């Protein structure tokens, strides 16, 4: 039994890597918002759920392939996030962090209940003509949806990294993250940067929604499954670190996959909790987090 499991390890690692890339996207949004606004976005799971539904209905009613839907859902999510922060969260919170926290918590409750009301609590799935096609690597079959979402996640992470590292907007976002008053004095509109950051964080969820749906399901509470994992990734990678989110996503994806292989589906999650505890004990700033 164990020998067989060991022979399946490479396949499990690869599968974990694939799923980890989507985890990374969810974590990326969370860590970015935390890094700049210094709040945990409690509405993160609910927003991922909305992105999944958006993708689902685009497919169901308009016949739009989920991967094609990326070019609609990503900008749509950005605009939704930007507007929600600019004219909702930002205005209502009067700049107080604890208010933002409560508002995002309230939003998640509203979104989940609205979803239950409008979309019912049933699990919904889509099936694509190529859902079961796969690449044969000899030791493992990788389904098209997994490979596509892996590559797309990496590309999106790379684009985000490029934005943050090289553009004026990215530098302004990083500047605001650590020195708000200095940022105001060079002429950065800090409130606008907050809204943009929130928008980008939600856009990451939009991407995750499109990439996830073909190999997953959606119901009003799906998002939360991912956000708990994403939170672990953020702590593991280091709060606010983009590279940390990516690496953390891979580590958690692989851990979950190997845990499932050796301990079974239900116990497989233990590995994630274990990592979470070990990180908190031995390296509370995370792998790539700044030391305080």
């Amino acid at each position, binding site marked *: 039994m164990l020998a067989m499991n060991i022979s399946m390890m490479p396949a499990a690692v690869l599968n974990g890597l694939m799923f980890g890339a989507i985890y990374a996207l969810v974590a990326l949004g969370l860590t970015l918002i935390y890094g700049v606004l210094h709040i945990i976005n409690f509405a993160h799971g609910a927003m991922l759920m909305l992105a999944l539904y958006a993708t689902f209905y685009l497919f169901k009613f308009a016949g739009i392939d989920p991967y094609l839907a990326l070019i609609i859902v990503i900008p749509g999510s950005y605009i939704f996030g930007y507007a929600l922060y600019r004219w909702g969260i930002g205005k209502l919170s009067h700049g107080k962090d604890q208010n933002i926290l409560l508002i995002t918590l309230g939003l998640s409750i509203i979104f989940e209940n609205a979803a239950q009301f409008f979309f019912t609590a049933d699990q919904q799935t889509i099936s694509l003509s190529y859902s079961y096609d796969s690449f044969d690597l000899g030791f493992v079959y990788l389904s098209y949806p997994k490979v596509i979402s892996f590559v797309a996640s990496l590309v999106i992470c790379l684009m985000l990294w490029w934005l943050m590292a090289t553009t*004026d907007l990215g530098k*302004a976002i990083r500047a605001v993250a*650590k*020195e708000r*008053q*200095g*940022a105001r*004095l*060079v002429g950065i509109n800090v409130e606008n940067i907050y809204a943009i950051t929130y928008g980008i964080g939600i856009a990451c969820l939009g991407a995750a929604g499109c990439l996830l749906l073909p190999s997953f399901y959606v119901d009003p509470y799906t998002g939360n499954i991912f956000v708990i994992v994403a939170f672990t990734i953020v702590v593991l990678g280091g709060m606010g670190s983009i590279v940390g989110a990516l690496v953390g996503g891979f580590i958690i994806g692989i851990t979950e996959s190997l845990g499932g292989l050796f301990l079974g589906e239900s116990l497989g999650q233990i590995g994630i909790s274990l990592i979470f505890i070990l990180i908190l004990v031995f390296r509370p700033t995370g792998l790539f987090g*700044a030391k305080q």
Partner: protein
Amino acid sequence: MLEVKSLEAGYGLVQVLRGIDLNVNSGEIVAVLGSNGAGKSTLNNTISGLYKPFAGSIQFEGQEISGMASERIVEMGLVQVPEGRRVFPNLSVLENLEMGSYRRGKGNRAKNIEHILEIFPRLSARLKQLAGTLSGGEQQMVAIGRGLMAEPRLLILDEPSLGLSPLLVEQMFTLIKKINNDGLAIVLVEQNVVQSLAVADRAYVLENGEIALSGPASELIDDAQLKKSYLGI
């Protein structure tokens, strides 16, 4: 170019500034002196648009700017180098300078950076270093350089000598004079009375949120009242 009239300002219910009148002409160095808590930074930050004044007017080059958004004020060329430097610690020196020109686009960026490195040659070797890892004096250079990158017409310096060693303080005042010689008007906010008056054209003394004294720097140096309260002579 800057005209502040009957300015009242503060924080929420706390009034700090009471009826401030102050003006700066082009090309001048105007010192604003006062002890800790006198309201100097409150004045700067109100002028820079970080806080809305309770009453009064602030005009910059003939345009009313009180209550205007801080980014618009920077765009007009009124730039502040804040107390405590407030450089972006997680950005490199180069990126800090680039962010100084956030409102200016990239047209003059390379040229202006070159100019600033001529003023602060020390920074040349540290362009890639994170600003948070620099010494206090170097951070002050980055902060001033960043301010200059905004192509200011009037530069407010809030306690640029604070926390620097005596030698660096000396250099800082020389440098301020040099920047001013290029035609830039400067508001020099300081507790360092003697050295400030030595480089300034005119000065205001702020006490408990009010202007207690003002006049040409050369006259204030001889002022008995000032000597008594600040120099202990």
